[in-house]
């Protein structure tokens, strides 16, 4: 009982003890310690993968239910209680479908694209602070790592657009490249303001700097709003879903994809939604901090709060046009983020 409580509320300590204890036994057997580290890393990797997949299954169901609520519908309600197993049924369907490779595709980029898109989303989970001490790898460049890794997605989308050998896909891919590149800059600037306030890029330090409920959402309210908008654009969700604009480009960069390759895109989209929300929660809403409930629960509550806001936006607004999208980034988001950064820097210097 004590142990479970300790695990939930202060996960770092018991996990650290487990690590040293295992190393002690391992050394007693005379085995090289790096092998044990490798085993630990594999276990962590599998745990992260499980979290990603389970979370994606839930978030897709949540999106469908929430949109149903907004649209006076019922949403999935046939498979399992309250339709909870619907996503699993869909996944099984996608897995057993025929994997079609159209004749004219560039087979290498066609195959590699879903992987390039999906792997970074996995990798980012490494630095998410789920709870006190519960962070797979607390890198000292945590947030920079996040930005760098998520930036890879655009290569995948471009590869999908080019490799599909379809004009709709190509337009979608090019739109996405322009979009992600121009929205990355305001995002960096907002993150920079946070880094200025904490003096560290380590995720655990960013959470620690907001302890005692001094959440950055108050001083950085502009930054928070900019981050939500820009983050939404980064993950290609409506109203910024131009790369896969259904009514214009059929399905954009994933027009030619089917079966499991399509599932990868789908999974990546929702995992990215979760990631953006999780990072927003960590940077602005105090991460896992909160009263009574265990930190990990608070982390998910805050993340899903942001997820809900993003879904709300997605189901309300029409799609923005491609030139307005660029204008919006360069003429509004960038100056606002820059101003926010300058003000933050001045205030920090003065205080």
């Amino acid at each position, binding site marked *: 009982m004590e142990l479970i409580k300790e695990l939930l509320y202060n996960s770092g300590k018991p996990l650290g003890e487990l690590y040293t204890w295992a190393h002690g036994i391992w050394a007693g057997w005379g085995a090289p310690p790096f092998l044990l580290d490798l085993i630990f890393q594999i276990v962590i990797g599998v745990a992260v993968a499980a979290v990603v997949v389970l979370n994606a299954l839930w978030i897709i169901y949540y999106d469908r239910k929430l949109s149903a609520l907004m649209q006076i519908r019922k949403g999935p309600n046939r498979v399992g209680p309250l339709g909870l197993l619907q996503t699993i049924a869909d996944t099984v369907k996608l897995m057993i479908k025929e994997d079609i490779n159209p004749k004219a595709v560039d087979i290498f980029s066609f195959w590699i694209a879903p992987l390039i898109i999906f792997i970074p989303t996995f990798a980012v989970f490494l630095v998410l602070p789920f709870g006190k001490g519960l962070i797979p790898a607390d890198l000292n460049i945590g947030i920079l790592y996040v930005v760098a890794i998520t930036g890879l997605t655009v290569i995948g989308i471009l590869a999908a657009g080019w490799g599909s050998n379809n004009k709709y896909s190509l337009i979608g891919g090019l739109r996405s490249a322009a979009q992600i590149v121009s929205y990355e800059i305001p995002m960096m600037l907002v993150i920079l303001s946070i880094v200025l306030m904490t003096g560290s890029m380590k995720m655990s330090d960013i959470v620690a700097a907001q302890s005692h409920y001094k959440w950055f959402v108050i001083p950085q309210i502009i930054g928070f709003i900019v981050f939500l908008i820009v983050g939404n654009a980064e993950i290609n969700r409506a*109203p910024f*879903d131009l790369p896969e604009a259904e009514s*214009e480009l059929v399905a954009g960069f994933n027009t030619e994809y089917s079966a499991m390759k399509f599932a990868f895109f789908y999974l990546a989209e929702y995992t990215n939604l979760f990631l953006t929300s999780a990072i927003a929660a960590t940077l602005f809403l105090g991460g896992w901090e909160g009263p009574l409930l265990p930190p990990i629960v608070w982390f998910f509550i805050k993340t899903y709060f942001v997820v809900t806001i993003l879904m709300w936006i997605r189901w309300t607004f*029409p799609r923005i046009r*491609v030139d*307005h999208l660029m204008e919006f980034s360069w003429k509004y988001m960038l100056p606002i983020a820059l101003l926010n950064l300058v003000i933050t820097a001045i205030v920090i210097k003065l205080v």
Partner: protein
Amino acid sequence: MTTKAPFELEKLSNDEYILNMGPQHPSTHGVLRIILKLDGEVVKDLYCDVGYIHSSVEKMCENKKYEMIMPYTDRLDYLSAVNYNWGYALAVEKLMGITVPERAEYIRVMLAELNRIMSHLLWYSAYGMDVGALTPIMYAFREREEVIDMIEGMTGGRLTHNAFRFGGFRNDLPKDFMDSLKKFIGHFNDKIDEYEALLINNIILTARTIGVGVLSKETAINYGVTGPSLRGSNCAIDLRKTAPYSIYEKFDFKACVGKNGDTWDRLKVRMDEMRESTKILKQAMEGIPAGDIMAKVPKIIKPAPGEVYTKVESARGEFGVYIVSDGTDKPYRIKFRSPSFSNLSVLKEITIGSKIADVVAIMGSLDLVIPEIDR
């Protein structure tokens, strides 16, 4: 069947490419094929390839008796079937000199206006989908369902309602019709405000539509554009007003017009038209007299030799019927003038120079129904 290539491929510059939009495409609302010549995202030229679902309705009509043609007309434009029935019924009545009893005229007006609302609601939903908003369709269908239920009570059909007869209407109104109509009129105006708040006045949509696809009054008239698409260009031509048929003179309503003729004006005209239709419905509900619903019509329809042209204002524009009779029980020749065909012809004029996304937005604002174009 061969189609001549609209653009000569070897004449394309290095920056240009051809994009084939349709015939299977999410936003062509049926089987319309548009071939776009693009430079990046900018439309340089376009060509509409129609005729994929040509069914030669007019030729078929020549081999049918007059009564049997009626169901063909409501399949031309399945979204405002009633007005097409009416256009045809009006032509035959004029040819035979039948006067329709007043109660039947009131029922016809009510049905036609309900149908207009239903059609505009579907247009609103589809337009939401075209511009990427997925929620408006659910809101509009909530009210559309009410309208369809009323129409189903009147005619028995939910899509291709067909209850017009030469000289009147097939059956009288169902008992509970007036109550449900009263209830509907009571709250529908608030719902239109809700639709406008959700989509039409949304800042993203206004940015996408104001100043886009500007159709000048002259161009519109030159191309024969009619209906809401013409009225969006500040041209108050509404056949219910300018060439009144049936009993439309009795009602107090106005022809809604836009200001600049851009895409947004066309959207706004349709929203306003739903309000006007509600007004007409209210007046019709209060003024409907008792009496017959069918005039005395001979058992066999055999109009005297001659020709006739009648036109009605459908939800999409002027629907005209031209009949040549040779005195037998089958028409010698029938020609339908369908509004969507002329409205589509102007697409090239107003789209060149805009973006791919605008093609969808502009085409949606013209409110096309494909079977009516191909006939």
